[in-house]
């Protein structure tokens, strides 16, 4: 069977699963939602087919599993968003349509040779820093939950960090491909631009008050540096510098300090001062409210979960029990409804996606492609680790989206561009030599 036919078959299976998901939400919540829910499944099958046809034309030799997996993750996310808040699902649906459009555009624009992006690497690097700085600008940035991650144009909100991540990877792939030999020998002056990026990431951390983003960009940087030079020592020094920088920020920035305290001690027996309200409250009623409520949601799932549409997210009076369920905490909602077995399957999907991405990096035959594929894939895995690990108290909680699953326009668009990038690289690697 040809690669694209295999992709089509997988997409049909995903479409069936999507229909099943929406149907179970509909059955469980007939009083709240209508049969219109099933039209979502139909719409998405159609959308996946459009994406497939574009892929068939633009990247005929690309990996046949990535698009169906991305489609399935998006569908799971959309089903859960629909179950939590049907109106948000409509907006998210619009965003997915836009994302598939951008995906198709990227494939068509770069189908001949994406490697020409390499010559614009510094423009990509500066764009990344520029995008990261945007939310810190007065008048443009918006503070959400103590972190400045958003910019707004009128009513439109946008998280530039998601796009910056992709630009950074292109820059790093280009720069490291060019300098990898001299970097491996340890010529100090070649580290200049890299240390500027490190400083930039730390600056972002301070300016946006967000440990998670800095962790993500810096992690991608270290991983790509390691792939390029093969020297673990650099990674070790990098981790040491990151820890030193993080500790400095931890001691100086109250917002970061509080997040770490919440992480280590989410429950208190006695009341502590609550900065948000100015009262004495138990920490689980104040700073760690979100974390604790989301853990209760995960815990309530147990082995088998409650089933799609049957989880408990609000009281009979409609009072929300878990804040930000659509975005940062969609994993806790899914964990409750799918249970350990279902959510492990979802995590397995993330793993397979990461492995297919790394396989593309292995098969690619030029340095830029290898570095870009490894960077994009590792960024995907690390971002998943940061948000889900934050929810599960593996590390301090920071508001990052879960790739493909969370509610949020900029996130979905950026992830579909990432998918397009991996498919382009894969297509080139798998293409017959004479093509």
């Amino acid at each position, binding site marked *: 069977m040809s690669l694209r036919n295999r992709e089509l078959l997988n997409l049909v299976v995903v479409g069936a699963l999507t229909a099943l998901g929406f149907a179970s939400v509909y059955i*469980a*919540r*007939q*009083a*709240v939602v209508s049969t219109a829910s099933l039209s979502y499944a139909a719409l998405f099958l159609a959308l996946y087919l459009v994406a497939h046809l574009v892929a068939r034309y633009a990247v005929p030799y690309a990996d046949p599993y990535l698009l169906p997996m991305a489609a399935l993750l998006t569908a799971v996310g959309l089903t859960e968003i629909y179950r939590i808040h049907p109106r948000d699902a409509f907006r998210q649906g619009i965003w997915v349509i836009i994302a598939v459009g951008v995906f198709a555009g990227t494939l068509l624009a770069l189908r001949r040779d994406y490697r020409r992006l390499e010559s614009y690497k510094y423009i990509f690097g500066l764009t990344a820093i520029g995008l990261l700085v945007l939310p810190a600008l007065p008048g443009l940035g918006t503070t959400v939950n103590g972190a400045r991650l958003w910019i707004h144009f009128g009513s439109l909100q946008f998280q530039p960090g998601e796009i910056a991540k992709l630009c950074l990877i292109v820059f790093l792939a280009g720069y490291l491909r060019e300098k990898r030999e001299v970097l491996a020998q340890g010529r100090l002056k070649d580290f200049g631009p890299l240390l500027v990026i490190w400083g930039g990431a730390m600056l972002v951390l301070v300016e946006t008050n967000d440990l998670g983003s800095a962790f993500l960009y810096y992690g991608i940087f270290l*991983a790509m540096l*390691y*792939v*390029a030079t*093969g020297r673990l020592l650099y990674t070790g020094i990098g981790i040491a510098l990151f820890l030193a920088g993080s500790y400095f920020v931890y001691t100086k920035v109250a917002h970061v300090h509080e997040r770490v305290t919440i992480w280590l001690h989410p*429950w208190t027996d006695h009341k502590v001062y609550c900065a948000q309200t100015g009262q004495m409250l138990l920490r*689980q009623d104040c700073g760690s409210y979100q974390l*604790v*409520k989301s*853990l*209760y*949601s*995960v*815990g*309530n*799932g*147990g*082995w088998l979960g409650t089933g799609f549409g049957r989880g*408990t997210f*609000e*009281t*009979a*009076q409609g*009072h929300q*029990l878990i804040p930000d369920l659509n975005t940062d905490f969609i994993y806790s909602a899914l*964990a*409750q409804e799918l*249970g*350990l077995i279902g*959510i*492990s399957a979802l*995590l*397995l999907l*993330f*793993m397979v996606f*990461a*492995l297919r991405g*790394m396989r593309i*990096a*292995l098969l690619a035959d030029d*340095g830029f492609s*290898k*570095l870009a594929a*490894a960077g994009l*894939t*590792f960024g995907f*895995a*690390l971002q*998943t*680790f940061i948000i*889900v*690990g934050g929810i*599960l*108290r*593996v590390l301090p909680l920071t508001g990052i989206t879960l790739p493909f699953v969370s509610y949020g326009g900029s996130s979905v668009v950026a992830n579909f561009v990432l998918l397009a990038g991996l498919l382009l690289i894969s297509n080139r690697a798998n293409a017959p030599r004479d093509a």
Partner: protein
Amino acid sequence: MNRQITKLAVASLILLAALVVATTYWQTWASASLAEKQDNAIQRVAQFRIKRGLIRAADGTLLATNVRRKVGGQTLYFRRYPTGKLFANLVGYSTQVRSRAGLEQSENAYLTASNANLSTIFNKTLDKLKGVTITGNDLILSVRPGIQRLAMQQLAGKCGAAVVMNPQTGKVYALASQPTYDPNLVENHFNLIKAPGAPCHPAAPLLNRATDGLFTPGSTFKVVTATAALDSHKFTPGSTFYDPGYCIEYGKQVSNAASPDGPVESFGHPTLAQGLQHSINSVFCNVGKALGAGTILEYMKKFGFYKDPPLETPADEKVPSGLYHGGRLFFPRDPRTQVDPGRLAFGQETLAVTPLQMAMVASTVANGGVTMEPQVLNRVVDAGGATVVQVHPHALRRVMSKQTANELTSMMVAAVNDGTGGAAAIPGISVAGKTGTAETGTTGINTTWFIAFAPAYHPTVAVAVTLENQTGFGGTTAAPIAKQLMQAVLSPRSNK
């Protein structure tokens, strides 16, 4: 570069596998402890799909039942309390918006069939597989609605509490607290819960005064001091004292009378027995000085002071009795210098006790010196009527010798027959009792007490009654209520 990419792939896999491990931890290992957290609203709301177990009094009267309601396509079971205010502070409530209280909180595991008994687990799993509504286990309590109603009526319009129990088994017949509230209002009309006319501030209608209210015990505490005096063999009921109407402590006179302005009343040369009978402070002041605070504290601990009373109600609705300093339980490291033994001996110092603890003191004397665990739960039965748990009477410890208990009983009988507790006398039945009138710091305003048991030589009922902000004495305000409660238990008509 392929070597590095392979390693990076492994690293990515480890990161994501760590998430599977962490999720497994929270969804299996830690799931039960998460479910037990008080602020776990998800668990609480989710439990409204369970047909919660019923709560019944000893005679079968329904105290808590369910109302089925369809909300958002789901069948939910909301609570209803047919007896309203009668058992509110004991039974508590189970709501979506305001968590749980009382037995609804502490016995939640039985009521939601999440207890670890094999038969319950089996039935629940079967229900889950069949897809039918899970039904909780029913609680059968030891409380008697007739006695409880009488206690609540007697306390009505006052602030106070009454505990009625069987001294031989520890089974509680009534646990009354006023002012109280209607548990049916908690879910949707919490703002209507008020007690505007209550003669105490804050009125705190949600507070279970019987187990969670702290009051100065006054002279009822002399029973504890007398136990220490007799059981330590330092004194006998016939030991004599000189009473000039006061006792000298730290060079100052401590008068017998509740009011220092009152006339000095002297009893001449009373015995210890007469000291208890007429509640003479100077006698106990001297006993306390002779015994030392350390010995009295030792007996307090034997009676169960300094520990939450072992009743089935939630831990946060019970407080230990003992000395309190600055709102905190205080156990002196050096009792000789940190505690005034004379004032401790007649129940002042900084003593604060719960009515339940004082009922346990009376019960212990009644039961020949052995403290029984106070219990309000008789049985847990499943939806099919089969007994899941039978709660058997449980002796906690021997506090005093049988002889000490007998001597104390005689002294307490004298206090009712010809002493301060005359108002508790029941014709034809010998009653043992002790009054208490504790100063509150405001002249003329007292906390009044009566603890008693009957029939004195074959006791089947023990009581403790406490009233706040009284102008009278324990013998005139609390003793008549205690008498009515004991009479009600002893009359054959109540044993239905």
